[in-house]
């Protein structure tokens, strides 16, 4: 029965071809360090799912942002779990992405023909940091408020155009409802959409070139 269903789908979707072309590649002998990219991808999906769930109860307004998170933590069934996963997953994702990058650098996997994979990866790293920076403000408590005050001020210390950058980030000269709203928009749509797109390119390049071999003594 299931075999028939699968065959019907396969005939139309080409599932077997998909599997053969995308996943069924011979792999060079690797170590656990080679799994960090997959770990980062998993964390991205986990953050996406828990983030969507958090949005059910969170509201990005200065009046209610803190109260709504308080409600998620104390009033909603398993709210503490969803937010806890999102909170710690964020930290873990930064760490995993960074170590992944370090591994690629140490094993020289960024060399020909994988330069673009590396460059896109750098973009992914920056976007991940952006996710961390924008997500940090959303609880709208003292810690996040002042962290963002300092963070945007650092961006504002750029010579000549610093003041403009500061105002663009904050949506005005001061931290306000506009800041919270645009950080929220960046956190839930702009950065994730950019991340998802670049992850697609990153994965395509990995499938195209395959995993790199570890350098041998001759290299």
């Amino acid at each position: 029965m299931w075999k028939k269903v699968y065959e019907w789908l396969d005939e139309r979707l080409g599932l077997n071809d998909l599997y053969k072309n995308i996943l069924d590649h011979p792999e060079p002998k690797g170590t656990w360090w080679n799994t960090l990219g997959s770990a980062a991808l998993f964390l991205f999906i986990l953050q996406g799912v828990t983030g969507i769930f958090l949005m059910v109860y969170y509201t990005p307004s200065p009046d209610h942002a803190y109260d709504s998170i308080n409600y998620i933590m104390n009033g909603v069934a398993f709210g503490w779990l969803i937010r806890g996963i999102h909170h710690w997953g964020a930290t873990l994702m930064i760490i995993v992405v960074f170590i992944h990058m370090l591994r690629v650098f140490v094993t020289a996997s960024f060399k020909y023909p994988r330069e673009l994979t590396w460059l896109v990866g750098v973009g992914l790293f920056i976007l991940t940091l952006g996710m961390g920076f924008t997500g940090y403000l959303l609880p709208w408590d003292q810690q996040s408020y002042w962290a963002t005050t300092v963070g945007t001020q650092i961006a504002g210390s750029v010579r000549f155009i610093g003041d403009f950058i500061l105002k663009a980030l904050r949506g005005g000269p001061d931290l306000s409802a506009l800041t919270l709203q645009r950080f929220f928009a960046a956190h839930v749509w702009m950065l994730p959409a950019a991340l998802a797109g670049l992850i697609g390119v990153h994965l395509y390049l990995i499938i195209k070139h395959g995993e790199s071999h570890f350098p041998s003594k001759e290299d």
Partner: protein
Amino acid sequence: MPDNDISRRSFITAIAGIVGGIIGVAIGVPAIAYLLDPAFKSSAKEAWIPIGKLADMQVGKPYQFSFTRVEVNGWERTSTSHGGFVIRKSDSPNDMIIFNSRCTHLACTVNWEADAQAFICPCHDGKFSEDGVVLAGPPPRPLDRYTDFRLTNDGILEIFYKGS
């Protein structure tokens, strides 16, 4: 290897399926509970509300009262005002009618007009008699009543609020 032994491959497949199922339930149940949480909560709105001393309510003269209910929905508090009239028919503590002053037409608040001896709604001139019956205007039905009331030992009249 005897034929009745399960192969390593099918053993791993089975274990992976079982562990995957457990993980799926462990994630799925909290996820669904989280999403549907508000639907599982009972809204305990009803309460006994004290509206005044019985001694202050004269027979035959409508006694106006009002009270405020605060509802908490998630992180938001909404307070709503309610009001009504007590009409004592006789000295007997149970012989009274308690109206909700909300007009049955479009929910404006009706006032007691002593000259007309009627409740008049300022919005569309709905007119109700002392017994709440519609005398004139657009209201589709008589004034609503608080039918459950009780008297405390210190002579305070309380009504049972069911939530609008």
